[in-house]
């Protein structure tokens, strides 16, 4: 166990002697596209501050599951979510939930970096303004802080006015993460954040994920099993069962990889399958 984690555990113990209730708890969560069920009955608890990796073969519903957690599924025509997602006690699937506020607390990073077609600075300032962060100086401060957080500050501090589209793919992805962090989310959902990046850029993002652990609750979908082992405290394995994606295994990463309970997981993590 590395030193950071040890420190975090002791700090954790000081605050609460009992294990804290999970920050996110899904109950019977299913996602449907029209008549097709993409994800069925997922029951998953996620602890605050932990990094959770979601792995599984293509098409088993990892993205669909992730999208349902901050109601991005609302944007997909024909998509319907049933069951419950309790985040910090409130069910975010209720119709009355303010999705603007929800998504401020539960941010999302996409597979393909998607900065807005504007300057680097404005990419971060736009959501800040939207969420009522007043004052130029205050916003400039946040921009610098989050860009430092993602290790981009030194690379872009002289060209904050330049278009974000001019950055490399890895830099764009880190800018997107910085933009999400600027809103100080409690949860960050990442859908294959490294799969469009080369190994070096993806290593940088991986380091960043490790640094964010404890500060933000992270759910990371990845096809890279080695990466899942490196970054994740817990791992969930999705698999297609009876024509719909299901969570077939979930637990501490080491246990999932070394003593998998489900047959699919055993074959998948040993590279026999998928």
């Amino acid at each position, binding site marked *: 166990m590395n030193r950071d984690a040890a420190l975090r555990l002791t700090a954790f113990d000081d605050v609460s002697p009992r294990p804290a209730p999970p920050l996110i708890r899904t109950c019977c969560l299913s996602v449907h596209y029209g008549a097709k069920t993409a994800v069925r009955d997922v029951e998953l608890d996620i602890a605050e501050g932990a990094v959770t990796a979601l792995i599984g073969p293509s098409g088993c519903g990892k993205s669909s599951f992730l999208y349902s957690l901050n109601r991005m599924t609302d944007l997909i025509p024909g998509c319907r979510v049933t069951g419950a997602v309790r985040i910090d006690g409130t069910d975010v699937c209720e119709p009355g939930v303010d999705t603007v506020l929800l998504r401020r607390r539960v*941010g999302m990073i996409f597979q393909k970096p998607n900065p807005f*077609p504007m*300057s680097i600075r404005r990419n971060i300032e*736009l959501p800040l303004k*939207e*969420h009522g962060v007043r004052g130029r100086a205050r916003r400039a401060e946040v921009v610098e802080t989050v860009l430092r957080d993602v290790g981009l500050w030194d690379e872009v501090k002289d060209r904050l006015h330049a278009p974000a589209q001019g950055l490399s793919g890895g830099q764009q992805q880190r800018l997107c993460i910085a933009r999400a962090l600027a*809103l100080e989310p409690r949860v960050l959902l990442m859908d294959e954040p490294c799969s469009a990046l080369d190994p070096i850029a993806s290593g940088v993002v991986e380091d960043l994920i490790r640094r964010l652990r404890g500060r933000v609750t992270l759910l990371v979908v990845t096809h890279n099993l080695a990466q899942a082992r490196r970054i994740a405290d817990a791992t969930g394995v999705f698999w297609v069962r009876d024509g719909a994606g299901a969570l077939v295994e979930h637990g501490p990463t080491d246990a999932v990889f070394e003593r998998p309970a489900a047959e699919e997981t055993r074959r998948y993590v040993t590279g026999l399958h998928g």
Partner: protein
Amino acid sequence: MVDALRARRHRIEDLAAAVVVWAAALGVTAVFVWILGGLLWRGLGGVSWSFLVQAPRDAGRAGGIGPVLVSTGLILAVCLAVSLPIGLGAAALLAEFASDRHLFGRLVRRSLDVLAGVPSIVFGLFGGVFFCQVLGMGFSIMAGGLTLACMVLPILIRSAEVGFRSVPDEHRHAAAALGLSRASTLFKVLLPAAMPGVIVGVVLGVGRAMAETAALLFTSGYVDRMPGSLWDSGRSLSIHIYHLAMNISGGDANAGASAIVLMVLLLAINLAASFIASHFLQRGVVSV
């Protein structure tokens, strides 16, 4: 042997195709040069600074086109001031909020297609009755501008809608994931990204408006005095040309000169628009 023959046949076919294509292109260019050349030859001598600023005299045979330019500008301004906000709003509604299956969206789109095909004289008659008589505006720049606005709206809405649709979904997802409201997404993310399409629409619309005579004949009228307000009648450049060429004997020279001015204006608007559009496309950015 057979291969060689075949290769030869391909070469001949290629050559023939090239000749046909080039001939067609040359033909089009020749027509353009002929029109432009004839115009320049007849009218260029008449274009001067004083021609641009002076008032027409002797029914337009002498003098310049100063008031006509002012009226044209005012009519265009009214037209754009009305059609731009309505056009952008309608385009955003069609592209972002009314799905293709939506009955309302289908209805609006179908109406626009019909409107786009209506001859301008019909718009002129409509404007003459509705704006001038029913709303009591009389022959006025206001009535002309509003009539033109009705006419260019379909073009404007359709191009702007294409502009909105060409914005990739990634931006919509990014905006939603950051908790931007639909209004901010529309105004701050989608509209800037849709700008090239909007500009194309504006250029096509302005081009059509500037070239328009039929729709203005019954609405803004052809008084060639300097307009005192938007409620005065004012003669647009295209009507001036039409009038000089058709009704005034000895007006040909000034008609040619006015036509050159109109062509130059249209060209300038086109160039400016393509410059702005490429600026948006290249930098992919709206400066802070």
